[in-house]
């Protein structure tokens, strides 16, 4: 379900859709076509193949997008348009990703044709270090009592964490965007998102994993799994509520399969991180032998 004002545009688009000749519902700027094949200045975490924006359904967003993205892609100003957010906007978007309201679409409510790259990039960076540091700390506390334990900083894991998380935050949106574009060409979808908006949603949805990773230091299996399920529900629901309107007009099976894949990949990310970076807690120590007062020996298990 989309917001009240957005649904007006949905109705307008539905009317347009009734006309069989209206195959597209967006108005592209002529200059936008030139940007298709060029890659942007490369920075890890900022790879992009395509800046195509023009498939939004609302006229208002089209106007805004046209005004904002009019600088040519090789100028610095072009990239500044992706960082055109104030502190309170970033905080609002983070809040929206942690407290998803049922029926509210994250993109329509918070992003609103101003997708930023600040949030996704720095949330991923923070998450990388949160996972690496928390994993290291939790392993330290778990193995602390052992006489043969020698602490190691495990710095290699930072690069692995960085590769995994940035790959997830950029490649999955790319694949999803490509898939949605392909479906869009076959089935008239009322709602569609630009690549940057998808990256934005994915980036902000990862925010809830940061406190989760820190709380995973607690060496209790049950606590860790409860935390994981809880954070998966929160961030998964943001994704589901965002992308359901984009696929619900499609074939039922494909829509459900898409939703399922989104949630599955999200779950795989968190399960994989938990399994790789955090050692299993509650490892049994070999049992000491305690002589009982009547001469028989008791063997006790020590955790």
């Amino acid at each position, binding site marked *: 379900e989309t917001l009240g004002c957005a649904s007006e545009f949905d109705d307008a688009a539905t009317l347009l859709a009734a006309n069989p000749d209206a195959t597209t519902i967006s108005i592209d700027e002529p200059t936008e076509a030139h940007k298709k094949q060029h890659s942007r200045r490369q*920075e890890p975490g900022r790879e992009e193949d395509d800046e195509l924006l023009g498939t939004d359904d609302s006229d208002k967003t089209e106007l805004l997008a046209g005004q904002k993205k009019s600088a040519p892609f090789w100028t*610095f100003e072009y*990239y*500044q348009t*992706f*960082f055109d*957010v*104030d*502190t*309170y906007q*970033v905080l609002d978007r983070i809040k929206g990703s942690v407290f998803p309201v049922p029926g509210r679409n994250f993109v329509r409510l918070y992003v609103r044709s101003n997708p930023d790259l*600040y949030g996704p*990039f*720095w949330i991923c*960076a*923070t998450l990388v*270090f949160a996972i690496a*540091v928390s994993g*290291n700390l939790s392993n330290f506390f778990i193995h602390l009592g052992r006489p043969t334990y*020698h*602490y*190691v*900083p*495990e*710095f*290699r894991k930072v690069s692995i964490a960085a590769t995994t998380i940035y790959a997830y935050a950029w490649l999955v949106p790319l694949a999803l965007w490509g898939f949605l574009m392909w479906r869009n060409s076959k089935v008239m979808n009322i709602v569609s998102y630009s690549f940057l908006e998808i990256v934005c949603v994915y980036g902000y949805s990862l925010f809830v994993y940061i406190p989760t990773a820190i709380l995973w230091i607690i060496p209790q299996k049950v606590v860790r799994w409860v935390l994981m399920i809880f954070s998966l529900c929160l961030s998964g629901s943001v994704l589901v509520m965002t992308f359901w309107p984009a696929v619900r007009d499609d074939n039922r099976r494909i829509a459900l399969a898409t939703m399922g894949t989104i949630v599955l990949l999200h779950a795989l990310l968190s399960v994989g991180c938990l399994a790789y970076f955090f050692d299993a807690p509650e490892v049994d120590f070999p049992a000491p032998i305690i002589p009982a007062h009547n001469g028989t020996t008791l063997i006790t298990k020590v955790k």
Partner: protein
Amino acid sequence: MRVSCWRSLPTCGLQSTLFQLRDLKAVGKKFVHVMYPKKSSALLRDWDLWGPLVLCVSLALMLQGGSADSKEDGGPQFAEVFVIIWFGAVVITLNSKLLGGTISFFQSLCVLGYCVLPLTVAMLVCRLVLLAGSGTVSFIIRLIVVIAMFAWSTLASTAFLADSQPPHRKALVVYPIFLFYFVISWMILTFTPQ
């Protein structure tokens, strides 16, 4: 060291290209400005990258000789420290400029690099403390020193960079700086000798 060379190209060739005593004094003056941060233009106007290079190399060298024979689990390699510091500084500078900051690229690199000085001092102190022993007391001392120097670095760089940031985005610019020095502090704190 040709700080003013590119600004006055005609006289460039006439000036000596040797690293002179006055250059050393300029670097030293900047070190003092970092340790007692107040709004000074020395760091910003007459930027240079020698100081950051020296600090980066000495920090990376001091982080070597850490624990673990296998390269898999040990501390960061020399190149990793180098890359983290310089790449981190570049990314933060780009971030600040993309958000609309008015500071120049190299000025920002200069400030971020020089503000690693407190953490380099912390690393030195940590290595000395570790020579004395590596028990709980030594860890607590190291923890306090690293936390203090981390706060000092962050506050110093924020003090220098604050004015050039757009008004409603200061927190957006300061947070990556905080993260940057936090990562360096973590590398220093988790250093364990063999």
